[in-house]
C-alpha cells in the first residue's frame, strides 16, 4: 500500500513526533524520536509492521526494534526517513539530541 492521502488536514510531522516522543521517553524508550518517526512513517501507509517492513525493504525485526526505541535517530535507514524534508530532518535531529537518553 502506498502513502494514503487523508482529509486535507496536514499533520505537522515535527509537532506530532515531539508529542509522541515525549510519551515514549516517559515509557522508558532510550531513542524515542527515532521510534516516533518510524511509527509516523508506518501510520502514513496504514500498514502493519510486517507489511511496512516489506514495502520499505527493511528487516521486520529492525522495524520492531526502531519502534521500541532501541535504535538511535542517526541510524535510521532511508526507508524510514526519505519522506521527510531536510528542514524536518534538522528539527528532528535536534529533538533527538534533546530527548534521547544520555
Amino acid at each position, binding site marked *: 500500500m502506498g502513502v*494514503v492521502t487523508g*482529509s486535507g*488536514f496536514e*499533520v505537522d510531522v515535527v509537532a506530532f513526533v515531539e508529542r509522541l516522543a515525549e510519551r515514549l521517553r516517559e515509557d522508558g524508550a532510550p531513542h524515542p524520536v527515532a521510534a516516533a518517526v518510524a511509527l509516523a512513517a508506518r501510520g502514513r501507509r496504514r500498514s502493519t509492521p510486517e507489511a511496512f517492513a516489506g514495502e520499505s525493504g527493511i528487516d521486520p525485526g529492525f522495524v520492531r526494534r526502531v519502534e521500541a526505541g532501541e535504535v538511535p535517530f*542517526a541510524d535510521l535507514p532511508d526507508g524510514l526517513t526519505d519522506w521527510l*524534508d*531536510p*528542514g524536518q530532518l*534538522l528539527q528532528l535531529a*535536534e529533538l533527538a539530541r534533546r530527548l534521547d537518553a544520555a
Partner: protein
Amino acid sequence: MTDHHHPRTPVDTDLLATCMAGMAAGDASLLWAFLDAFGDRLAGVVRGALRDFHREDVARDADAVHGLVLDVAFVLFDRAPGWRPGGAAPWHWARAAVRAEVAARIGHRTEVLDLDRLDRTAEAPRVAVASGTGGPEGSAALDRLAARHPAVAAFAERLDAVASPRDRQVFAEYLLQQAQGDPSPSHTVAAILGLTPANVRQIVCRVRGRVRSAA
C-alpha cells in the same frame, strides 16, 4: 460544544473503527492515520470549543489550532479502549475530555506586558520566553548541527543559497522554536526579532518554498 466547521464528506466509519481499534491496542502509528483522516473534524471541534471559550484569538491562529488538534488526538488515543463502533464519533463521545484538554492548554487569556507604557524613559528589552535564551539562536543552532550532520549541512548550504541573512535567521529561529514544542512559533519569533507574526509566516513560507524548489 458548537462545531463551527462542517466537513462535506461523511465520516468513513470503517476507517474510524480501524483507527480506534488500533489505538486501543496501543499502536501509535494509527494515531497518525487517525489524524490524517479525521484531523479536519478535530480541528472543527477544537475551533468550536475555543469560540465557546471566547478565544477567537486562538481559533484564528492556525499554528495554535494545529497544536491543540494534536493534543486532543492524544486524549482520544488514551480513551480509545472505551469507545465502541456504531456510537457517536470519538470527538463527540469524549466531548468533555476534549473541552477539558483545550481549556487546560490555552489557560487564561493574557495580555503582553508593555513595559514601555509603564516606563517611557527606557526601551523595554524583548525576551524570548519560549526558548529562555534572551535572543535569537536559530542560526547558531543550525550551524552547530550542520557541522555534525551531512544532511543538515546540505540543507544549510541550500538555505544560504536562497535566503538573505535575515530570512535565514527568521527561518532557522522558527524551526528551532518549533522543535522546542512552541505551539505558536510565528508569534515567538516575531517577538524575538521585532517582526509581526504575519511577517514571520510569510518569510517562512517563502523560504520553505525556495528551499524545496532548490532541492
